[in-house]
C-alpha cells in the first residue's frame, strides 16, 4: 500500500469519536468543563473546582450551539471549506439584478427566497406587473409578450426554466425580462 504511512500511521487505525450535540449529556459536560477550565486567574479553591465542574453538568443548560474549541476533531482546512460552502450558500443571499425592457430602472431580488421557478416567476410578475406565458420545454413561453431570460456564468443569454432550479441559482448572474420581437427565436421552436 503506497499510502502516506510516514505521515498518518494509518497501517492500522481505529478512531471512534463521539462529538456531542446539545441533546447529549456528554456534550453538556464537555462544554461546561471547557468554560470552567479557563484559568486567567490562579484558582485558590483547587479542591472545590472539581466538584464545581460536576455540579455544572446538571445545572447549566448549554446554549444550543455551544462550540468547544477544537471539537469536533476535524482539520481546520476541512471545517473551513464546509463552512465556506454554507456561508456562501446561506448567509449572503443571492441578489441578482432584474431588468425589464422599457422599464426606467432595475430591481434586485434574492434568489434564495424562492424554492423554485413558479415562485420566482410569480414574484417577477408581481414586481413588474406583467404576465409570463405558459412554459414548455419545446416551445419556451407561449401566450405572452414577455419572456424571462437570464445571463449565466459564461455570459450567455438563457431562457429561464430550462435547467434544474439548483443549477439555475448557481449560474444565474442577472435576470432580464425580454419583450416582444426580441424574444422571438429564443423561446420558440419553429
Amino acid at each position, binding site marked *: 500500500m503506497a*499510502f*502516506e504511512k*510516514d*505521515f498518518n*500511521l*494509518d*497501517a*492500522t*487505525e*481505529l*478512531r*471512534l*469519536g*463521539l*462529538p*456531542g*450535540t*446539545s*441533546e*447529549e*449529556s*456528554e456534550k453538556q*459536560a*464537555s462544554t461546561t*468543563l*471547557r468554560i470552567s*477550565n*479557563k*484559568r*486567567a486567574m*490562579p*484558582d*485558590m479553591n*483547587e479542591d472545590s473546582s*472539581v466538584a464545581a465542574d460536576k455540579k455544572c453538568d446538571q445545572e447549566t443548560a448549554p446554549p444550543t*450551539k455551544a*462550540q468547544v*474549541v*477544537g*471539537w*469536533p*476533531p*476535524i*482539520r*481546520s*482546512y*476541512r*471545517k473551513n*471549506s*464546509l*463552512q465556506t*460552502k*454554507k456561508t456562501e450558500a446561506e448567509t449572503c443571499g443571492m441578489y441578482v439584478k432584474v431588468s425589464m425592457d422599457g422599464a426606467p430602472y432595475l430591481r434586485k431580488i434574492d434568489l434564495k427566497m424562492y424554492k423554485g421557478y413558479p415562485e420566482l416567476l410569480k414574484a417577477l410578475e408581481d414586481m413588474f406587473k406583467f404576465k409570463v406565458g405558459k412554459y414548455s420545454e419545446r416551445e419556451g413561453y407561449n401566450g405572452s409578450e414577455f419572456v424571462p431570460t437570464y445571463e449565466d456564468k459564461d455570459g450567455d443569454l438563457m431562457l429561464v426554466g430550462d*435547467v*434544474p432550479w*439548483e*443549477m439555475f441559482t*448557481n*449560474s444565474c448572474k442577472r435576470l432580464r425580462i425580454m419583450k416582444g420581437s426580441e424574444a422571438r427565436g429564443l423561446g420558440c421552436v419553429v
Partner: protein
Amino acid sequence: MNYFPDEVLEHVFDFITSHKDRNSVSLVCKSWYKIEKFSRQKVFIGNCYSISPERLIARFPGLKSLTLKGKPHFADFNLVPDDWGGFLYPWIKAMAKSRIGLEELRLKRMVVSDESLELLSKSFPNFRSLVLVSCEGFSTDGLAAIAANCKLLRELDLQENEVEDHRGHWLSCFPETSTSLVSLNFACLKGEINLASLERLVARSPNLKSLRLNRAVPFDMLQKLLMRAPQLVDLGTGSYVHDPSSEAYNKLKAAIQSCNSIRSLSGFLEVAPRCMSAIYPICKNLTFLNLSYAAGLQSNELTNLIQHCRKLQRLWILDCIGDKGLGVVASTCKELQELRVFPSDPFDAGNAAVTEEGLVLVSAGCPKLNSLLYFCQQMTNAALITVAKNCFGAIVRSCKGLKRLSLSGLLTDQVFYYIGMYAKQLEMLSIAFAGDSDKGMLYVLNGCKKLRKLEIRDCPFGDAALLEDMGKYETMRSLWMSSCEVTLGACKTLAKKMPNLNVEIINESEQVEFNLDDRLKVDKMYLYRTVVGHRKDAPEFVWLL
C-alpha cells in the same frame, strides 16, 4: 564483518530501507555506524525541535530526502496558537550552506515562508519532490519560485494547506522545457488558475500520473485535460458543475472512456447532481474514492455510484450517505480496508445522517476493514453505553495490531485498563473528555510499551499520573495535555528532573508574570524529547520550563 570491504556493506545496507532498521544498523559497531552514516539518504524527523539542522547535517551528510513534522497534532483542531513555531527556514538555510544534495522534502504542520521556498528552489539543483501537508505561511509567489527554478521537478503535492493566493500565474512559471512532472496536486488553492498554461503543462508531461485540480478549474477544462493525459492513475477533479445535456458533458464521457488507468478519484469540490454517471465507466477499477468534499451529492446518487465500485479499498465520504448508503457500501465493497465518514455539517446536529447502525453494517460486511474514522452525530444513550463499554473492550481485545486510536466521551478508567492490557502495538493515542482518575492515564503509560505520541484534552488526569514514570517520556516522541488537572509545579518538577525533555507551557491568558503559584493548573502543556535543549524561536506565550 571485518572481511567485507565498505562498498559491499554499503550495498547491503541499500536494501535496508526502513528508518527503524537503519537506526538499528548504526548501533551495531563503529564501522557500521560510519558506513550507515554516509550512505543514509532518507531521514524522518517526527518533531522538528528534537534535533537541530546543524546536527542533522553533521550526522547524515549524504542526506537527499527529508521528512519534517512541526506543530503538535492538536494544532489541526485549533488548540495551538499561531506563531507557536515549526519554521522551515532555518532548515533550508543550513542545508543550502552545507551543500546538501537535497532532492525530496516532505513537510507536515510546518510554517513555510515564501522566502524559504525561494531559497529551496535556488539551492538544490537536483530537487525533485515537494510535499506539503497542513502547512501555512506561504503564497502562490513561493510556488512560482519552485515552478520556475526546480528544473527537474517531478512532484508538487499540496494537501490541505492554507495558501495565500496572490493571483499570480505560478503555473505559467513552469518553463516550456519542463517535461518531468509526475505528480501535481493543487486542490487546496483557492484562486484562479491560468487554464491555458495548465493545459500546455499537462500536454508536455508524458509521465504525469497524478493530477488534482482546484475549484477554479471548470468542468469543460477537465475533459480537455483528460484527453491530454489518458495515462493518469490518480485524478482529482475541480469544479464538477455542468448541465448533463450539454456538449461538454458528452465530451467528458468520451474522454473518460480512454482513461483506463485511473485507480484513485477525488475532488468534486463543487458538484451538481445528475452529472456523476459520466464517471461510472472508471468506477470498476477504482481502489480509492474520496467524495468527502462533495457536499452537493445526495445519498441515492452516492449509492448509485458506489454500486459500480467493487474493487474499492479506501473510501472517504460524507455522512449524508446515511445508514442505508453504508449498507450498500457493505454489500458492494468487499475489498474495503479503510473507511472515513466525515460530518457534512460539523456544527449543526440537525441533519444527522449516520448512526451506529451504519457502522455495524460496514463492520459486518467488510472483512478486511482495518482503518476507520467515523463521525456519527446521533447515538442513543443506550448505544453510547454499548459502544463505550462493550465495543471498545472487544475491539481493543481483538485488534492486537492496533497502532493508532482516538477516543472520546463517557469512558471510564476501565477502557484504559483494556488498552494498556491489550493494545501492545499502540503507537499513537488521542483521548478527549474521558477517564475518571489518574489511574486511566497510568494504565496506558505502563501498558503500552510502544507508545510514541500521547495527546490528551479535557480529562481528569493530574500530577500523580504525570510524574509517576518520568523516564517513560524519553521513550516517546511527545506528550500533549490540555485542560487537564496538571499543575505548574508538577511541570516544573518534571522539567527539572528530565533535562532531555523540553516542557513547554502554552499560556494564552493576559498574564505575563511567570512567578505564579505552583498550584495553578496549566491550560496547555506540550513536552517532547530532544537532544538540543530549549528552542530559540519560542514566542512570548510559550514558557520553556
